């Protein structure tokens, strides 16, 4: 059934002559950027604040905790023992005071000192960030390859293939990291000995951990992509491309894919942040260094400065990732540049 376009909102009508539009485009780009920066700052501040006050809720007397961490023995402490700690970390200050100092620290990029390691948190994170980010990026890259190949091969190929295709998507997306990781370890490292058992940071060591993160992510993205892919395949422009004499595969790769990956692009931005959750598990299974293990240790031993550090760091990653996504998005779909 045909539908007229005459009820379109007037906004989309007509072609803005680029010459006329350029200054306003700049202006709006500026506005856009400003907005981004503001929201980024808000997110960072919010994340750090949430983390800070979440810690205030943690049970137990801070000084005792610190002392116990350092002595490695969990027990009650006498005031004499605690006094120096309280002094050192200014725990006698009011929460508000501590919060303000904390914020002041944030601004100058000082997250304080680890209770456990006596080192500045920034140093600890700086050390571990690379490992995790590499892992995440590799994982996302792999998942893209898996996803694109799989979807292009199986999407819009009739009920049977489709069922298999999406079936695999669902299964992959449903695989818990810890389980997948262990199985991969069991099969490829312990069993077939193809990869080292202890991940380490070498290139060989990253394969299994990355796969562990990549496979579920690929399945997850594939679900979204497949839908778009099949939707795009139904679009008239596909037909007209075929009518020009284009082969099916060519159409899929040159036209359809580009439309289909848009949701996946959005997802990957989110994934970069989310893979960190996965990293926690994966790093423990493959005994890799990284933010994940730092986080678990820190939370486990209530090494609060580190926890806040990680949270803020992740927030930063998230913000950056989303910015990257927006850019990628506009590259793939120039229509959204102004909206």
């Amino acid at each position, binding site marked *: 059934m045909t539908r007229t376009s005459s009820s379109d909102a007037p906004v989309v009508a007509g072609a803005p002559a680029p010459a006329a539009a350029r200054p306003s485009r700049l202006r709006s780009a500026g506005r856009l950027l400003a907005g981004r920066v503001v929201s980024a700052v808000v997110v960072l501040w919010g994340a750090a604040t949430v*983390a800070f006050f979440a810690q205030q809720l943690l049970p137990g007397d801070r000084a005792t905790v610190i002392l116990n961490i350092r002595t490695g023995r969990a027990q009650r402490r006498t005031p004499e023992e605690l006094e120096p700690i309280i002094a050192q970390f200014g725990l006698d200050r009011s929460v508000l005071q501590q919060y303000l100092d904390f914020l002041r620290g944030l601004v100058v990029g000082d997250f304080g000192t680890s209770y456990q390691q006596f080192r500045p948190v920034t140093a600890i994170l700086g050390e571990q960030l690379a490992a995790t980010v590499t892992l995440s990026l590799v994982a996302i890259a792999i998942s893209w390859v898996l996803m694109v190949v799989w979807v292009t091969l199986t999407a819009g190929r009739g009920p049977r293939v489709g069922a298999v295709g999406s079936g695999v998507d669902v299964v992959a997306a449903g695989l*818990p990291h810890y389980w997948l990781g262990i199985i991969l370890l069991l099969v490829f490292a312990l069993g077939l000995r193809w990869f080292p058992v202890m991940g380490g940071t070498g290139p060989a060591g990253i394969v299994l951990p990355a796969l562990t993160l990549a496979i579920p992510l690929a399945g997850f993205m594939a679900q979204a992509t497949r839908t778009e892919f099949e939707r795009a395949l139904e679009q008239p422009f596909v037909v007209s491309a075929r009518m020009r004499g284009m082969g099916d595969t060519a159409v899929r790769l040159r036209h359809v894919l580009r439309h289909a990956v848009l949701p996946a692009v959005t997802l990957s931005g989110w994934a970069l942040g989310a893979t960190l959750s996965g990293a926690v598990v994966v790093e423990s299974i493959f005994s890799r260094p990284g933010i994940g293990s730092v986080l*678990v240790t820190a939370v486990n031993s209530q090494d609060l400065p580190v926890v806040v550090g990680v949270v803020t760091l992740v927030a930063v990653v998230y913000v950056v990732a989303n910015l990257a996504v927006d850019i990628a998005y506009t590259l793939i779909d120039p229509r959204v540049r102004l909206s």
Partner: protein
Amino acid sequence: MTALRPARSPSRPSRRRAPWSLAPAAALVGFLGIALVAPQVLATHDPFALDYAAALQPPSLAHWFGTDESGRDLYSRVVFGTRESLAIGLGAAAVGLAGAIVLGALAALGPRPVAAAVDRLLEVLFAFPALLLALLLIAIAGPSALTQILAVGVGTAPGYARMVRGQILAAKNSGYVQAAVALGHTRWRILRAHVLPNALRPLVAVFALSVGQSIVWASSLSFLGLGVAPPSPEWGALLDAGRTYIVQAGWLVVIPGLVIVALALTATTLGRHLQAGLERGEK
């Protein structure tokens, strides 16, 4: 980790998916149902009884899923673990969606300042890795089934909240709402009669999906040793316990894992079919 969904509404399943994919799901649901109300019917052994003579036996006719380090029958433990695992899954999904609805509704319908604030809050929570929220919560409240439920719920809420927000906004700007306005209905009535029902209805399907995801999540917490107390046969805990024996007794890891995956898949399949059903209109 696939707990969070992006802000877009859940993907449309290809309406062509054959119904046979439902058969195993239905069977599993039936099985779980029984395991839920009357585990003893399905169990072949006492899930807690120690039998050191029979420790670490591979799957056999006597012990379908084999036995663990203390000679307990894994199959029976899995069956008895259903209750707790499902309870946690359902609970977490409920908490998550409830939170999501409140936040989402505020973000979509609240007065401008409130909406803006909630929007930002969602941004912030979204920037928080779900597992981190969970870890903090557990550190605060100490590990237990309840904390697990809350942790997973809180961890998954932001993602769904965004979805709810989108749904509500979509409904709010829909043709039928405009028609209702044109008919002179009051704001509140339109909200009640059109916006909320239409926006929240898809959540039925989402709930099913999220149960599956929540169980996976909860079990990963158990796996990190932050779950329920032993000797509870909660599936994630089983997996964690089996980890030590992975080489000698792989089934202790493989089987509970398969069960969890199977359940997650069932939930997803059902959820998607529910979605398809809803989208196919009233029937």
